[in-house]
């Protein structure tokens, strides 16, 4: 239920999520749960990164907690977080009126577009590590970027057919915007209907920001992180190597069971280890390029293996 913030009715953080979930569910999206391996963005979840590959149409939506160790601020910065929440919508292919549908989703979360200034500003997205890029916009609402809208063109270095529309809402930013609060930690997460007691974002998440920032910047063991990265990488590469002879596997079942997804999880683990090392200041600029190339080899390798598997088993994995 909406509550009154700054003299206006506004959605709580969790109601914002409900509204977006219902809105997109009503438009045919499968609601998926957040992916349970560390990712830096909703795009990196296999529900986006792998589902956009191949010919099978998909409509899917999910909230995705996104970890960015270097953005941690020990809970002291009102606008920056170690972990923020994206709401990710994938429309493959996008409907012709996708922009209007997006505007309707803003109306659904209580934004009267006649009383706000909305601009579609060019913002092309790319994730070089994933060989992925697209063109699109950042949606600016009263000077604040609230959504990234991307027409995916390539993923894993492969052209997409059909093209996909990706809509990524920054939930904390939108909640701040709706509730008119200057600090993320003051966002009202929920209100008890019987007592009126408010629970804030800070109450739910501040300790996590404090501790995970400390872990990323001060505690994480650099030599262990390198060991993790190397170990995950070696295992991922071994799987990718075996994936090369996937077509030689005897039965359909064996082909379906080849763990491309396992390789992807290992690649994501590498990516997160890299981000932690980066936050620890353990990666010199010279090394950075090299390590990113290593991770790119894993992620793009997985995408190619996935595409190959889809061809072998007739795109039954969905």
């Amino acid at each position, binding site marked *: 239920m909406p509550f009154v913030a700054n003299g206006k009715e506004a959605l709580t953080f969790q109601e914002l999520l409900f509204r977006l979930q219902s809105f997109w569910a009503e438009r045919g999206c499968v609601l998926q749960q957040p992916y349970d391996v560390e990712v830096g963005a909703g795009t990196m979840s296999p529900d986006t990164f792998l589902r956009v590959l191949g010919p099978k149409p998909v409509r899917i939506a999910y909230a995705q907690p996104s970890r960015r160790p270097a953005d941690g601020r020990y809970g002291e*910065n*009102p*606008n*920056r977080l170690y972990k923020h929440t994206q709401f990710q919508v994938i429309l493959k*292919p996008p409907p*012709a009126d996708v*922009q*209007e549908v997006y*505007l309707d989703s803003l109306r659904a979360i209580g934004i*009267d*577009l*006649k*009383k*706000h*200034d*909305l*601009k*579609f*500003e*060019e913002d*092309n997205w790319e994730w070089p590590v994933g060989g992925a890029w*697209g*063109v699109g*916009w950042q949606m600016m*609402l*009263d*000077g*604040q970027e609230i959504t990234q809208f991307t*027409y995916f*063109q390539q993923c894993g270095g492969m*052209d997409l*057919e*059909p*093209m996909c529309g990706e809509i990524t809402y920054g939930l904390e930013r939108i909640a701040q*915007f709706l509730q*008119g609060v*200057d600090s993320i930690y003051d966002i009202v997460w929920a209100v008890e209907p019987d007592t009126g007691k408010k629970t804030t974002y800070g109450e739910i998440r501040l300790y996590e920001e404090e501790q995970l920032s400390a872990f990323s910047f001060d505690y994480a063991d650099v030599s262990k992180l390198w060991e993790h990265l190397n170990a995950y990488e070696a295992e991922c590469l071994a799987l990718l190597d075996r994936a090369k002879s996937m077509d030689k596997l005897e039965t359909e079942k064996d082909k379906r069971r080849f763990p491309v997804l396992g390789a992807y999880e290992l690649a994501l683990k590498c990516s997160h280890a890299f981000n932690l090392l980066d936050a620890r200041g353990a990666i*010199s*600029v*010279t090394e950075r*390029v090299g390590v990113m190339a290593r991770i790119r080899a894993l992620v793009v390798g997985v995408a190619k293996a996935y595409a190959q598997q889809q061809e072998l088993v007739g795109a039954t994995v969905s």
Partner: protein
Amino acid sequence: MADFLFEIGLEEVPARMIASAEAELTKRVNDLLGRERLLEEGSSVTSYSTPRRLAVVVSGVLRQQPDAVEELLGPSLKVAFKDGQPTAAAEAFAKKAGVSVTDLSTVTNAKGEYLGATVKRAGKSASDVIAAELPKEIAGIYWAKNMFWRAGKPERFVRPVKWMVALLDEAVVPVEFAGVTAGNTTRGHRILHGSGTITIAKPVEYVAALEKAFVIADVAVRRQKIRKDLDKVTRTVAGARWREDEELVETVTHLTEWPYVILGGFEQEYLELPEEVLVTVMRDHQKYFAVEDAGHKLAAHFLAVLNIEPDAEGLEIIRTGNERVLRARFNDARFFWEFDQKTPLVDRVESLKNVTFQKELGSYFAKAERVRKVASSLARLSDERKTAVDAAALEEAATIAKTDLTSELVKEFTELQGIVGGLYARAQGLSETVALAVYDQYLPASMEDAIPRTVEGLLLSIADKADTIGGMFGLGLEPTGSKDPFGLRRAANGIVKMLAEAKLPVLLSEIAGLGSEHAATATKVEGFFAERVEFYLKDVKGYAYDVVKAVLAAGADDVPDAVARAQAVTDVRGSEDFAAVSAAFKRMRNILTQAREKGEAAAWTPDFLVEPAERTLAEESGRLAAWVEGQRREKHYVEALQSIATLRPHVDDFFEKVMVMAPEEKLRAARLGLLNRVLQDFSRVADFSEIVVSS
């Protein structure tokens, strides 16, 4: 005579691409109609664009191409008839002309007798031609970045095409592109008008119909409205002015269909942050215009250009929203600023070891070491040549110049590199000379840009750029054709501009030598610099190409000197005597070149000269040469050139009375030697044989 309207409706096109796309579509439509003979005498074309549309209106379009009469030439009569009977060749030609063989005529021309035919081609209707040809023109528009969206990727375009309008007066022209067929309905403002369609009855009503739907289609009108509104809204603050920013006006013009300017404010306390930081946040990150007071100091206000005209309540919501965003950004900037002060620049030098300048060239720490050496050498050279430099301050500046790359503020606002370093240097109590040199180190970024304000800043900028150029050339990463990924041409142009405008007493060969590790690299860099001097003299200063060639032939190592010589040649080239001497010098050069090709020897043996005319030329030119050389050393170039022009009668006399290529070998060599000598003596300011003389 009809009007033709074409509009293509798109999902929001990037602001930076709209102006050129509008111009290109206009040209393509107009050229197409012209090419197809569909334009009346005195036809005119206007164009429109918003983020969601590109449109062209042509008035004076013919509804029908005029009929054309074409004379076809067929096979020769010899081939066309055998024994009086038409051959297959004749039949084929008749078929092509669409008549029977008996209707063919005979044409006689220089080559003989041929079959001919007169063919009338009926003009096609404008509608048919446009429907057939326009799609190719749309598809041909250049986009810096495009996308596919339809299954099977039949076309790539900047953004998905949503609708098209194509009207010849009231009639729809069924142009098809990207799965869309043109009609007579367009769309208005996304929010103020909503998603309903608007019918355009005929082209002349286009602008007014859109205006009713909250769209100002004419870019110039929109730009003007924004400027006027910026003025109007700023006037609500006593004594305030908005900071002129043409580029930003252009951007917001192309981001809006119905622009509306609002004034916002921020807390005074943020004005303690440097203006550069505040303006960068407002301009580059928020597309706000900065406001200044009567004394040009930044005021605690900003102007935002909306794409909507809100009611009073909306206005308040939008204003507070924008103010909140800006406050958060300023807070970030302030946080970074304060955080950065905990580690002074001098303590950051070591951490530059972790910042790569370029893979093979190592870190910025290594670069700073090299730049310091180059800068010190340049300072010594300048000092020796009566240009005082604070060498200690320059060395200090070179040491910390790049340390701001490790600061949080520069990581957040990369466009402020250098500037932040300068501001921090000042805030941390370093000398003003050091602060200014660091602040200005990236100047000039372009040929229109100012050069560093101090001699220390100039030398730091030159040393930094010379090191980059020398390093990249050493790796074989020279610019090729239009490819210059490291901006080396811009860097070298900057060096030339600084030398020229600050009249610095250092030579390009010295700069190239100091910046390069090996002599071979230095030689390549020198050649590269020479090209840049040519560019500077021709394209930046506007000297005539032959003057530039003449001046460069006499060397371009000393840039301010090359500029002075180019100016002097430009000043005197109009005089008749000078033109005559130039022509004579060219003749001498040609004679010498031909003689050299034949293996002729040239020797300075004046005793062998026999004719009075040639002995006079030898004596007079010898006497004059010493005088001209004195003038040249004093840099009195105009006087030097005028003196050379006084040779004219002797030169004319020589060519009139003397045959250079005399049959006798020794005399020939002596004459060639004389010409050689004259050319050498008088080509040190400029090589006149390069000057183009209009006869």
